[in-house]
């Protein structure tokens, strides 16, 4: 039953470790303590966004505005922190989550209430928020030395040898796992994705859930805005351009069905770890810029194909197996 899924995730985890080992054998630095710490720090943003994207894809949607949301929220918080350097650092992630959630609510309202297809809505809001970055910043950048000190330092704080980035990524992933496997809301999302009409018939509040899924995704995208600006110490109009496609790719690699209804948080997390590591490794092992793009594209296609063949409909035997008890009617 779940073995297929489990083994697929195990396989993905194994390939991820193999990838790291490969990189390590070429560039030993990559697998040094510092190297791995940096890797986990880098990957945490993609993990958060992949998990956010996963719940949207699960309900047959897509959110192309996550990266724009990240960039917009990042700019808002960067400008605020520059203007109010004295405020406690804990304010910034909170601001980001709230702003991101509001951006997500707009998506949710348009999709759930007005029934506009998600791809159209989020393509639109993607442009809107990219444009808004320009409007609020006047096109100027916020760069490293402008940020208050704590803003850049806190996420780098190490706990048990790993940065706060990593712990945030882990918390988000674990929290989402809990929601998706152990709560009514999460399981009802699987129902909505698998058979929307049946979900409605079963009394699932489809619109309500849809609205909140986009809101949660928005909130997580906002949180990533904070992570991104402090990780790269910069906010501008082009931050994370095209990153939304990486989040979708991570989900696909992780076995989330693009048609909705199937996929796991663990899968999405490992999809993100694998893809993020790949993007990190290719330059390190000296693959040229042009080949990087082509190679990662090919790997995504391969992953999709692999998912497809592992999702074959189960065999419904009619003929009795050799032993007569195996018979099914």
């Amino acid at each position: 039953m779940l073995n297929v899924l489990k083994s697929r995730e195990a396989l993905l985890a194994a390939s991820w470790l193999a990838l790291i080992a490969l990189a390590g054998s070429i560039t030993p630095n990559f697998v040094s303590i510092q190297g791995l710490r940096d890797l986990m720090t880098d990957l945490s943003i993609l993990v958060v966004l992949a998990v956010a994207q996963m719940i949207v894809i699960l309900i047959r949607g897509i959110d192309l505005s996550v990266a724009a949301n990240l960039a917009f929220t990042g700019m808002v918080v960067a400008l605020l922190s520059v203007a109010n350097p004295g405020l406690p650092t804990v304010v910034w992630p909170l601001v980001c989550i709230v702003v991101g959630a509001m951006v997500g609510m707009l998506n949710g309202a348009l999709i759930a209430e007005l029934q506009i297809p998600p791809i159209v809505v989020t393509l639109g809001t993607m442009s809107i928020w990219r444009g808004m970055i320009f409007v609020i910043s006047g096109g100027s950048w916020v760069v490293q030395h402008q940020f208050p000190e704590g803003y850049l330092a806190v996420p780098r704080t190490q706990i048990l040898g790993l940065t706060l980035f990593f712990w945030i990524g882990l918390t988000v992933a674990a929290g989402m796992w809990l929601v998706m496997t152990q709560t009514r809301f999460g399981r009802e999302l699987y129902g909505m994705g698998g058979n929307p009409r049946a979900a409605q018939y079963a009394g699932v509040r489809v619109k309500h859930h849809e609205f909140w899924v986009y809101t949660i995704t928005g909130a997580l995208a906002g949180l990533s805005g904070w992570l991104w600006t402090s990780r790269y110490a910069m906010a501008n109009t082009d931050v994370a351009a095209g990153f939304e496609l990486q989040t979708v790719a991570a989900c696909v690699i992780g076995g989330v069905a693009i048609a909705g209804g199937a996929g796991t948080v663990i899968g999405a997390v490992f999809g993100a770890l694998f893809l993020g590591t790949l993007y990190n490794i290719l330059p390190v092992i000296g693959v040229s810029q042009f080949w990087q793009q082509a190679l990662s594209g090919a790997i995504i296609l391969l992953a999709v194909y692999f998912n497809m063949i592992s999702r074959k409909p189960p065999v419904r035997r009619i003929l009795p197996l050799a032993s007569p008890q195996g018979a099914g009617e």
Partner: protein
Amino acid sequence: MAVHENTTPLVELEGINKIFGGIHALRDAHCRIHAGEVVALVGENGAGKSTLVKTMTGLYQPNSGTIRVKGQAVRLATAKAASEYGITAIHQETTLFEELSIVENIFMGHPRTKPSGLLDWAAMRSEAREHLERVNLDVEPTTLLKQLSLGQQHMVAIARALAEAADVVIMDEPTASLSSNEIEKLYVIIEKLRDLGKGILFISHKFDEVFRIADRYVVFRDGAFVGDGNIAEVTEHDLVKMMVGREVGTVFPKRAVEIGAPLLEVASLSNGIEFKDVSFTLHKREILGFYGLVGAGRSEVMRAIMALSPYPFTGQIRLDGVPANWKICGDAIDAGVVYVPEDRRNQGAILPLSIRDNIALPSMKRLARGIWPDKSAERRLAQEYGRVFEIRAASIEQPVEDLSGGNQQKVVLARWLATNPDVVIVDEPTRGIDVGAKSAVHEALAEMVEQDLSVLLVSSELPELMGMADRIIVMRLGEMVAEFTRDDFSAELIAAYATGARAPQPAREVA
């Protein structure tokens, strides 16, 4: 049984109107269900039965009218509201989740939770096990739904309704994909519910079921109530007359035709998973019936012949003496062999398209002038076959998804017979189709057989097969176990072979 005049009904609908665009699906409809009774709701395809069900379960909002639960007027805004008032339904179309486990299918929308608010999987699993026991389904509750057969999936739907512990349980054609065994189990379940004081609304086009299980009947015609009463006080004939408003022959109009030369020869077809050693010969103008329990492998054989099976098979197929190596279904269709699948909603109709598009689809090439489709010829074709199969719709431009369940079935049947094939393989041709249209379907098949059509008729309805077929092959667990010619048809014997109560006939007799 129905001396309920003085008790308050569990649910009562009064003056319900429901209009879809221009279609008046329910007109001033009324209906009541008391505690401890089974009410059969009968009516033709499109009479408004499912619409009534959806109104009672909060899925449709009536344009006007009153719904009372235990005497109190209520508004059922959502499915959730209806279930809170104790009304649940097994809907006509499948409303389950293939990718999820049985447990989740049973508890979707009304889960058991721990005090912490998290799901209580252990409680749900053990409760699910109980419900599965009640419907006699011997599988682990953690099994994914997609691993079950269609019949088993239906039993899960029933288990789901039981788990809701509702006062009123509505079943919209629950027996359509159940085997006779499973139907018997369903009767037992319904009787238990009745004895517990629940009210049951049972919808079916099969009168034997209605007379077997119902205490009272309600008849709808064209969205309006036309009568009700105690089942003991009517005959099938009376019910049909109320439903249709005229007399309908229920005899199966087999016509005497001269059976011709062998046409489709199938020799030792096996695929190791679904069927083994299937051999038969279909002659020109012959109707060859296939009987068996649901899941006996009949449909799987037909799909293999049509090159629709995912599994490779061994054995030979010859059409008119020529080996048929059909690679894709289109090859078979080009050769004049068409297949009307059993699951017509998923494998047949293209729901968003109009009736005309659906019927004309495979005939488009034949009707077209060059590369230009001939719309008016398509319209004529759709109209003609729509009439033959008594499709009830506002117009042939109506999307198929807006049709009633039975009318969707007819559209698919019409589509394939409109291609003017040499051989048609029909899988459960009259499932979900009302009495009148059923005899129209039989009539149409008989007439086309006269004009050289040969038919492989897969059906789980023995009377239909015994009425229509020249020969009947019985299958059980993927193998042919017996064959009968028209002169020695015997319902008991055929059923005995199908259930395995009798050991298979020796192979030489089968071939």
